[in-house]
């Protein structure tokens, strides 16, 4: 009977929607999914409401796939609700796993983001400087908006997370593998990232092109060089996060002759992907001279943004110091 099929929920928080697309990208495989499970909640595709979820018994959803980072009180409320109703929660995609691109908002706070988004952008015409308010009186009635946090959180900083599906967005084969593992009950230990625990170099075809001693004299940005499609990016002086990034993505960027930017996050021995990569990169700078070192460091335009492109909220520092933001 169909009612005995395991129940599955999908939800999105602060994300671009790409992860929803990733589910659609399963193509005909989605039919197998639908055959095997009951999708009980999927706001982007199906018309279930919050109250429907609230009505479910605790733990009755077999697994909730939640993508996007948490940056609004509403998102926090929803993921906490889903946690309560679900047996398993999978952080789906870079944003819920590490914070993702929205996580770069942690270099700012609510006030500066609002000022930028609603007032100072050149395309904005807002002479009164109106910004969204949590409470507004309209015709004697109170309207509310969710609270916008100063900080973006990863999913596991808000609720307990069982597994992580990495990637921006997660590739279809990893999604299918994860679903199969869940359906068959062949699950790895709790907290596991459902992708191989080695860095991208393990699968990268360019790894063999590395020189015996890899050193960098000058850091170049991808547009500054004509990239050799066979050669290791680091050997070409271009920052590639591959060595500090978990593999399993299918090297889509590398195949397109673009360096890895780190969306799969670190391997399990590394807490802070950005700091780890910083350490590796600094180590291979090809000079012992203080002035030379500073010269090369100067050419790395935005180290924090580069090394933490996807992982700022999950990093050790998590965010920029609040006092520093004006």
């Amino acid at each position, binding site marked *: 009977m169909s009612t005995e099929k395991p129940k599955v929920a999908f939800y999105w928080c602060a994300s671009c929607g790409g992860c929803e697309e990733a589910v659609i990208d399963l193509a005909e495989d989605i039919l197998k999914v639908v055959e095997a499970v009951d999708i009980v909640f999927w706001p982007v595709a199906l018309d279930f409401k919050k109250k429907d979820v609230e009505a479910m018994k605790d733990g009755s959803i077999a697994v909730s796939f939640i993508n996007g980072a948490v940056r609004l009180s509403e998102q926090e409320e929803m993921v906490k609700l889903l946690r309560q109703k679900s047996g398993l929660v999978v952080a789906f995609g870079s944003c819920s796993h590490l914070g993702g691109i929205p996580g770069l908002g942690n270099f700012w706070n609510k006030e500066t983001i609002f000022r930028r988004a609603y007032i100072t952008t050149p395309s904005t015409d807002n002479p009164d400087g109106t910004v969204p308010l949590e409470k507004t009186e309209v015709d004697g009635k109170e309207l509310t908006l969710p609270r916008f946090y100063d900080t973006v959180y990863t999913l596991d900083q808000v609720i307990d997370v069982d597994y992580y599906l990495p990637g921006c967005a997660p590739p279809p084969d990893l999604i299918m593998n994860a679903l199969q593992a869940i359906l068959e009950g062949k699950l790895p230990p709790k907290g596991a990232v459902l992708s191989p*625990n080695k860095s991208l170099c*393990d699968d990268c075809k360019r790894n063999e092109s590395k020189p015996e001693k890899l050193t960098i004299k000058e850091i170049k940005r991808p547009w500054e060089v004509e990239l050799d499609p066979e050669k290791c990016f680091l050997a070409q002086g271009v920052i590639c996060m591959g060595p500090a990034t978990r593999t399993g993505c299918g090297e889509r960027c590398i195949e397109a002759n673009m360096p890895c930017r780190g969306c799969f996050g670190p391997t399990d021995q590394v807490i802070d992907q950005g700091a780890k990569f910083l*350490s590796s990169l600094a180590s291979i700078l090809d000079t012992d001279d203080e002035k030379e070192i500073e010269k090369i460091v100067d050419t790395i335009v935005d180290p924090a943004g580069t090394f933490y492109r996807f992982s700022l909220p999950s990093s050790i520092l998590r965010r920029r110091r609040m006092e520093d933001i004006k």
Partner: protein
Amino acid sequence: MNNDKKIKLTINDKPIEVDEGITILQAAKMLDIDIPTLCYHPLLEPYAACRICVVEKKTGENSDLVTSCNTKVQEGMVIYTDSENAAKARRLNVELLMAQAPAAKPVQEIAKELGIEKTRFEIEDPEEKCILCGLCVRTCEQIVGAEAISFIERGKNRTVSPPFGEPSEACIGCTACAYFCPTEAITVEDLYGRKVIHNELNLGPSTAILVPIRQAVPMVPVIDEEACIHFKTGECKLCEKVCEKEAINHEMEDEEIEIEVGSVILASGFKPFDATRIPAYGYGRFDNVITGLEFEKLNNASGPTEGKILLANGEEPKAVGIVHCVGSRDKNYNEYCSRVCCMYSLKFAHLIKEKTNAEIYDFYIDMRCFGKGYEEFYHRLLEEGTKFIRGCVSEVTDLALTEQEEGKLIINVEDTLLGIVRRIPVDMVILATGLEPGLDQNEIARIFNISCSQDTFFLERHPKLAPVSTFSDGIFLAGTCQSPKDIPDTVAQAGAAASEALALADKGTFELEPITAEIDEERCSGCQLCIGLCPFTAITYNKEKGISEINDALCKGCGTCVSACPSGASQQKHFRDSQIFAEIEGIFIE
């Protein structure tokens, strides 16, 4: 020529049986019959140009004149080398050569032997030496393989020349043509007017086959590839042809031999300070400014002057200056003391005193006679009358200010004991050049994972407690690669290094560092970033497994690779990331 067939013939009525294919000249030589030759050379193809070797060949009633150098023996040949016909023809040929090259000495000698006083023919150029024998052309072609010269023009205008009479690019400057020329018609000159300073003292190779140094062990000559004609043109191999023991093999190549050893003693030595770096001392500009090592060669009984102390012009010096600390104890070059120069300078002074009547001046900063018996030797020199001047030499010049200084080298020095600047004219200046680390010092340090001190000499593990060990277990140091030192100290250190090496080998085991790094196979992706970072080359890439691996015996446990490992696969025992994180958390617990 390796033909079994035998040929019988008679030369000057003497019968002989010889191998088929040889020439009459060669057959005559076997019978000790002398046939004069000019254009013949056993190493070259016969050419029959001079026609001095002409002999009479009788076949029955018929008589014929043939050149013996290129006529092969035939069965039943009857040869007369000095018959009337042959002698007449030879005399005529000699007379013709006398007219062609009146200044050619070998022709004059043969003419004298044959009793010819003057030629009947017209002499065009009384200075001409070339007899057009073609030895030079054949040498260049057949031995050297350069083909830089050939005959040009015809008849009486025939002459030997490179193409268009210009210096030829094909010429490799081997001078073999001049060497083979019987009449000295070819001379060698240095087109670029380079001045060769004390050429006979040049420590570099002088011929392509040489014994590198006079005390070489084993005492075996080697071929200098840079100078050898064979390695330039692929030809020559004359030495191979003439070496009866067949000891020469041009095909031999350098080979790398892998030897497994338990310990290594580095004794890679030093490099003498290059005296041209101090232009004021005139080394390289003045013939008679030489270095200590050059003096040693000059003084050597088997050296170029058989041990006589002579100036470049062959005269004995009347005054010699020895300059100490050249390149040592000098902030401009090396700050350290080279330790051997004072004593070898004293030895030189003593030897010069013994061999010549020259006045000897020793210019020193401090006299460092530190070893056993050294101070006594210094006192002996003082008694012998060597003049010691304490002060730094500022300049050696040939610019004379007085008549007395004319033609001398003048040493400008501040005499710090007298407090005046002095000019001392001498004939010879010996620069006591110091010791510098070997040319490939850094490369060796890299290969053996050892450190260098700031002066680039290899760093010992401890200056007092472990003076022959290095930071790499099993690598020991001996001699001047570690620091400048004299022979007694080197021998002592070498003995110590040998016993340390033996002690280690005897024990059969050695202690590993407890705190080393380890790479987790399961986590390493083989990104290889760590490999270049390891100062001890303890990490290698295992291509088969696609991971990097650490050699426990080489790892010293600095943890640089651990910090750099982008995937956390490398961890340091007792200093794991997790342990340090816990420690940091610990110190912040209130």
